[in-house]
């Protein structure tokens, strides 16, 4: 028996990472800002995105959204009410979106071309674990946390919070009846992802949306 060691030094998700790098290059070349929205189920990603799409459209921006769920096109139908093109991705049991799914759904998306967009939002499958490993080529990863979830969520799921570029707290309109401890929540997010931009929002009242939209415009400006 002759045994020997062969060095590989290969990323386990190399295939996804390569596809994601290709997507990122095409987003940047088209001048479109792509955001990947991640949170647990029920945080209010869809409601937040509905409001964001509506407000951006009202300002004349060209927007579109891809939305991932295990089953149903309920979210796509909700988001399409904004007037923006929306495409549903059903993963049929897979707990995250990956770069291949994004590529496939961008190809042949009738009436939508990357270079005809200012912003593309990808609403990931509701899950605070798996989406953190899968790069979708996005320029900005946004983690959302609702006031009903508990201030220690960032400490319980540090991997995802640590991989985010921006954090959005949703449902601020019900913060008080929920006994939401704002200072602790902000501290915990910052403890896991030091220096991250945090937006305190309500899709219902529109609170915090101005600041959020300003951030988007600024981030898109950097692309140009």
């Amino acid at each position, binding site marked *: *028996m*002759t*045994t*020997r*060691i*062969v*060095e*590989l*030094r*290969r*990323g*386990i*998700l*190399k*295939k996804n990472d390569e596809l994601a790098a290709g997507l990122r290059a095409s987003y940047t070349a088209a001048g479109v800002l792509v955001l990947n929205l991640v949170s647990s189920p029920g945080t209010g990603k869809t409601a937040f995105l509905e409001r964001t799409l509506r407000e951006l459209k009202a300002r004349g921006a060209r927007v579109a959204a891809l939305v991932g769920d295990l089953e149903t096109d309920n979210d796509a139908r909700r988001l399409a009410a904004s007037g923006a093109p929306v495409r549903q991705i059903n993963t049929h049991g*897979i*707990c*995250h979106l990956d770069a291949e799914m994004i590529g496939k759904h961008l190809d042949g998306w009738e009436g939508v071309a990357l270079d005809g967009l200012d912003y593309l939002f990808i609403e990931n499958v509701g*899950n605070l*674990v*798996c989406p*953190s*490993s899968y790069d979708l080529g996005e320029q900005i990863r946004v983690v959302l946390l609702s006031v009903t979830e508990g201030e220690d969520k960032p*400490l319980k799921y*540090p*991997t*995802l919070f*640590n*991989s985010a570029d921006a954090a959005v707290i949703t449902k601020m309109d019900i913060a008080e009846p929920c006994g939401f401890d704002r200072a602790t929540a902000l501290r915990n997010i*910052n*403890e*896991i*992802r*030091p*220096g991250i931009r945090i937006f305190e929002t309500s899709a219902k009242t529109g609170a915090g949306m101005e600041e959020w939209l300003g951030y988007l415009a600024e981030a898109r400006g950097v692309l140009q």
Partner: protein
Amino acid sequence: MHELSLVTSIVETVSETLTALPDSSRGARVLEVRLRVGALASVIPESLEFCWGIVSEATPLEGSRLVVNVMPVVVHCAPCGIDSELDGVQSFRCPRCGELCGEIRQGRELEIDSIEIDDGEVKP
């Protein structure tokens, strides 16, 4: 939760590596696969090991050992100018000065480091 797809990818990658080896090593058997998994990689080593036997069955990896080396998080502290290993993933503060550190230098790895193979009979 996606450990099964990770293990499938590892088995595919290692199998491809074997077919790319020189002729004399064709038919080599894999004894061990060593991974480097960062503490921030969202992967549970036990779940990888659980899937290992099933996925590697009827491949050149059948019967091999999976060794998972967990890489702790290393942060860079700008004020101190040093890199430090952290005990956990609950706080990203410099152990020396207590400052929050945004720069992660290690801990997100998810890679196949190396494999140990048995070439069998070396042909003359």
